[in-house]
């Protein structure tokens, strides 16, 4: 019974939402929207669970003096300050998102720089991951390296300059107009071709597989065949 009830609810809800996808007439037409509103309300309450989990996790860390417990104190302090400033800004400025209020100050001068810092780290990680991915150890990796090199050349001014210089050299051959050849932008064209043809084809292949997989998974969930989300077996 404990497992049958969620399965019945899933089946009924799933079938209803599939039907409403094809029926614009009220009350079915706006049902999906209503469900999303309910979801938002439920999700709002689960943030309390999240807050409880977060605070408990870090308080336990501090109590047990686990590695990095000092950071947990900073986190709890940061959480409390954000909460206090949020309520203060709400009370004093009618909204915590009013420009110039303490909460927005916190957001603009602490949260945003912290986010930007994390995002900036990505540049270094891209370099290290690219180094490993582009090492020409196998035929496929060599192909990837060549394709990536050509795409990069096609996207930066250096590629354009390089092609003009190559065209100039070719233009030294009698009968060949190097200046006109330089306007051909070979690397940019190769880049366009790689991105529009092989890259798009591969991407669409994955898209088709993903969407069909999602449809099959949805049918399995609606019919109650897929139950792993309510039990691991």
């Amino acid at each position, binding site marked *: 019974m404990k497992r049958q009830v969620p399965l019945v609810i899933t089946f009924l809800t799933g079938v209803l939402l599939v039907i409403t996808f094809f029926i614009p007439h009220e009350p079915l037409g706006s049902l999906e929207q209503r469900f999303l509103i309910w979801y938002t309300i439920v999700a709002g309450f689960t943030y309390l669970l999240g807050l409880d989990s977060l605070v408990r996790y870090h308080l336990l860390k501090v109590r047990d003096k686990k590695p990095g417990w000092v950071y947990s104190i900073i986190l709890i302090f940061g959480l409390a300050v954000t909460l206090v400033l949020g309520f203060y800004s709400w009370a004093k400025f009618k909204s915590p998102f009013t420009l110039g209020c303490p909460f927005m100050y916190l957001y603009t001068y602490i949260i945003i720089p912290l986010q930007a810092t994390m995002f900036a780290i990505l540049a270094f990680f891209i370099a290290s991951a690219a180094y490993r991915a582009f090492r020409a150890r196998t035929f496929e990796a060599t192909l990837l390296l060549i394709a990536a090199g050509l795409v990069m050349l096609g996207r930066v001014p250096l590629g354009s300059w390089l092609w003009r210089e190559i065209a100039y050299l070719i233009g030294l051959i009698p009968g060949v107009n190097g200046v006109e050849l330089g306007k051909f932008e070979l690397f940019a064209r190769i880049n366009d071709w790689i991105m529009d043809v092989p890259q798009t084809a591969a991407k669409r292949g994955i898209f088709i597989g993903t969407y069909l997989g*999602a449809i099959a998974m949805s049918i399995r969930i609606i019919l109650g065949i897929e139950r792993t989300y309510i039990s*691991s077996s």
Partner: protein
Amino acid sequence: MAVVAPAPPTEVKAYDTRNDAGKSITIEWKLSATDVGDVAVLKGYEIYRSERPDSGFENIGFVLCGKTSYDDNSTQDGKKYYYYVRAVSPTGFADSEITGPVTSKAQWFNTDRTNILILAVLFGFLIIWYIERAKKGEKLFIRKITGLDAIDDAVGRATEMGRPILFSFGLGVITDIVTIAALSILGKIAKKSAEYQTTLLVPNYDPIVMTAAQETVKQAYMEAGRPDLYNESNIPYLTTDQFGYAAGVDGIMVREKPGAVFWQGYFFAESLILAETGHTIGAIQIAGTTAITQLPFFIAACDYTLIGEEMYAASCYLKPDPQMLGSLKGEDFAKVVTIGIIVIAAVIGTLAHFKVYTFDKIFEFLIDLFGPMRMIFGR
């Protein structure tokens, strides 16, 4: 100086907006001859409405020059309306003829989605047919998915090293179907980790996913006969901030040094930050996502990567009962059908391009049939 009026819009027609929930009428017209797409010459068009054909017209909307339609979303279903369109220039205006009466009503079927209905019924039928075949005991071949086969090795390796296992759903929320697929994988890993008595850490971005993950892990531990090992604080909520989450998970990785890391779910720009940190601590990493843009990063940084549909196949692959395998086989056959349609359409498109026979008409029909799907799915 004489005031010069623009030419009026022509062929004005009003009709009930198609495939909607009612309360809307669409008005269409042909551009005024004065409309050259320049607001200095013709500002745009005012739309007038009345419930009588001879009087009582009120301005209900305005669109800029170059536009040829307007949706009146303030109608009452069943009521008769009359419309005309006025071309407005800086120097004057000109009215079209009055059109009507027209009434709005809600539709019971969205005809733009007929093609999706047909394909969904066809694919659904294929899946159910294969499930039935599998139930009858037919042996179905499923290709090896190396990333899923490596789960046991990864958990075993973490156990041998005496290190915990880390599992992340990325930024996926519970309404993402990929998160549901990831929950299946988590269940399998949790059961294995309970059997091997290895700590499983699941930091979360979304509190609902956290609750679902806690339930999944608890259930898996109970099935493994080790409910005593379950620790809720190993499945905490971190933050619903993208880079805050990345920083939090990186911190956990650097401190706890997990032996195996699983990135399963929906990821954005933080994917490489996470996976590269996992690489630097020497963890074996198995990723899986349907986020196409993040796949190259995972492939570059992780040991194994489940690409798109492989994630959805995970639960069938890990629990190969006839019903699950049958649905997977049905999905594969649907893929064959899709590839067949693409190949046939490509051939017809090529023939249409070279104006062979009447293939251009067949190709147009195919575009009409499948075009709206592209609009709905946005790809």
